[in-house]
């Protein structure tokens, strides 16, 4: 097992290197190059010259790349053009929110998606089946900002059940420790703050969760349909096992393997899906930061965030592969 993990970790290195090359190239390819990216089109030639020698942009590319890499390794991606703060600082400040949101969305997607997909497969061809297929499609197809608008209209404006934006009711002043608001609330025993922070996750979480939900439903359905046709399920039935045992031990367990991979993939994708969701919910996370960065052409932030997110994404998928190894003995040994 350990060797499996180590090997996968080693496989990351080339990917991350390639990634850094890509982003390095990206920044170089931007109209005006990195100096302009950092200083903006208004930068005077002198300013650009100053910047170039300051960051050694007058040196051969490979040297520049190594410098870039060196700084990237130390998580130094320069300063945001919008706020003038270090990119990494901004990221760390906003990451907890996004993690909370992503977790909620994923729990929602899994909690609803797997049972729904399973039922759909069990009742293959029934109205429930077609409903779940179509529903999952709506989930993917409906634009987030529109969904957000509808959700807020219903639950925030009309019913007033849930908060429609932000991470915490502004009038509550909660103690901050980890910047994971729900967690903070629990740690500090400020139950109301924790609960409030949680309710703030619901609407954006659902809006964000619809896409993975849709996909999980589809995958679960498909893979259950596959598994029930497997010989070993027939064997299980031939053994006269109780239906519940057959389903639990022989159908679901195996059907979940592909779902696990999807979940990993989706969790990673959520990080970028958050760009739209967070901004329409004024949710102070990484996504909304990227959204602002796009409009402010804040390349330093875009570059830094994209690289870090990509790394996170890769790591998440590594975790999934490992857990997959735990689930499926065949992978483990190979």
């Amino acid at each position: 097992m350990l060797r499996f993990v180590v090997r996968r970790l080693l496989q990351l290195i080339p990917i991350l290197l390639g990634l850094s090359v890509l982003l390095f190239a990206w920044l170089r390819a931007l109209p005006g190059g990195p100096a302009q990216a950092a200083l903006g089109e208004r930068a005077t030639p002198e300013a650009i010259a100053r910047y170039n020698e300051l960051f050694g942009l007058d040196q051969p590319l490979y040297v520049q790349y190594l410098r870039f890499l060196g700084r990237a390794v130390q998580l130094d991606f320069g300063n945001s053009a919008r706020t003038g703060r270090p990119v990494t600082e901004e990221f760390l400040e906003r990451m907890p929110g996004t993690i909370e949101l992503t977790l909620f969305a994923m729990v929602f997607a899994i909690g609803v998606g797997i049972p729904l997909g399973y039922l759909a497969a069990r009742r293959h061809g029934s109205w429930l089946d077609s409903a779940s297929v179509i529903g999952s499609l709506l989930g993917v197809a409906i634009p987030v900002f529109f969904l957000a608008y509808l959700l807020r209209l219903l639950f925030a404006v009309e019913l007033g059940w849930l908060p429609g934006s932000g991470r915490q009711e502004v009038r509550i002043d909660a103690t901050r420790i980890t910047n994971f608001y729900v967690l903070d609330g629990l740690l500090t025993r400020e139950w109301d703050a924790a609960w409030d922070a949680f309710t703030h996750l619901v609407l954006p979480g659902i809006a964000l969760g619809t896409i993975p939900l849709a996909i999980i439903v589809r995958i679960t359905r498909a893979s259950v349909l596959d598994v029930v046709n497997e010989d070993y399920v027939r064997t299980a039935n031939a053994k006269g096992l109780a239906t519940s045992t057959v389903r639990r031990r022989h159908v679901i367990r195996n059907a979940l393997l592909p779902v696990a991979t999807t979940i990993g993939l989706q969790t990673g994708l959520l990080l970028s899906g958050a760009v739209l969701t967070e901004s329409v919910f004024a949710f102070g996370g990484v996504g909304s930061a990227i959204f602002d960065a796009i409009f402010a052409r804040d390349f330093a932030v875009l570059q830094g965030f994209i690289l870090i997110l990509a790394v996170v994404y890769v790591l998440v998928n590594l975790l999934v592969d490992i857990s997959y190894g735990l689930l499926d003995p065949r992978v483990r040994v190979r």
Partner: protein
Amino acid sequence: MIIEDVPPDAVDRSGRPVLEVDELTVTFRRRGEQPMRAVDGVSFAVAPGETVGLVGESGCGKSVTSLAVMGLLPRRGVQVGGSVRLDGRELVGAPDRALRELRGADMAMVFQDPLSSLNPTVPIGTQVTEVLLEHRDLSRKDATAQATDLLDRVGIPDPARRLKEYPHQLSGGMRQRALIAMALACRPRLLIADEPTTALDVTIQAQILELLRELVVDSGTALVMITHDLGVVAGLCDRVHVMYSGKIIESADRHELFARPRQPYTGGLLASVPRLDGVRGAPLHPIRGSARDVIPWAEGCAFAPRCDHAQDDCLTEVAGSTVPLEYDGPGRELRCRHPLEYPRSPAGATAAGAAR
């Protein structure tokens, strides 16, 4: 003399058959397609300790028959007719619960492909014990103990360790042994083995067959052996039913069948198997064509198109004029208008001849 190997006491010829299959028909109805009759009026019986072979090319309906007996055919789109009785209990149309109680306990099945028939994500141990836990009220501990014992009986070395392993860690033979162990866990009255050896190397095949025979013999279990391989039949079965496109076309005791196949199809099958006692250098005679060129039974004999002895009356245009399965001497039944003929000779002699 294989037949003598079976100790008389194990086989209570007195008792009524364990399994009685009567006019079993299985029809597949797919949305839009016209119904397909995979098994058509099949009847046979198996006595305790007896081994019966269902022989035929792939697609002749032998596997479907076995699944029908076990009640493992999907409920939707499949229609099972006729009657299947296990120790007199009607299985056709019995509620799923009832069937589940019987399966694994009173009747068990061993499947063709041992790898795909084992759950890859569950340790062998669990897969064996779960049968015991399901049908016998045992503690986990006792179940494990019995499982170890079972694996040992089916000849898996170091069973304690194997229990913890996963299917992919076992060799093909081991897997099949494990499957057999599961099937026999609760000492079922009826065991159906569907091509249990086809997926295995020849050497292993022999071992597995030997194993099956031993188990059947000393447990008095009734065994139904589904196979296309007459070699297997020769080694194992007391009675043989040859199936063709959903119908039994010839039934006989093993030695009768081998000595004097009547149905040309059976003859073909035998002729296409190299025989040790066959004449040196005598060429093999494969059956012409393939199972694909089959005509509906309704129009005479489905095998006719491929049959060397076929004559015009084998193929009548009149619907419903199916060639019937008729009495063909003691212990024999035959479905053929122009069977193979043999010079008359005393029954005893033939038996001896067959065995030699």
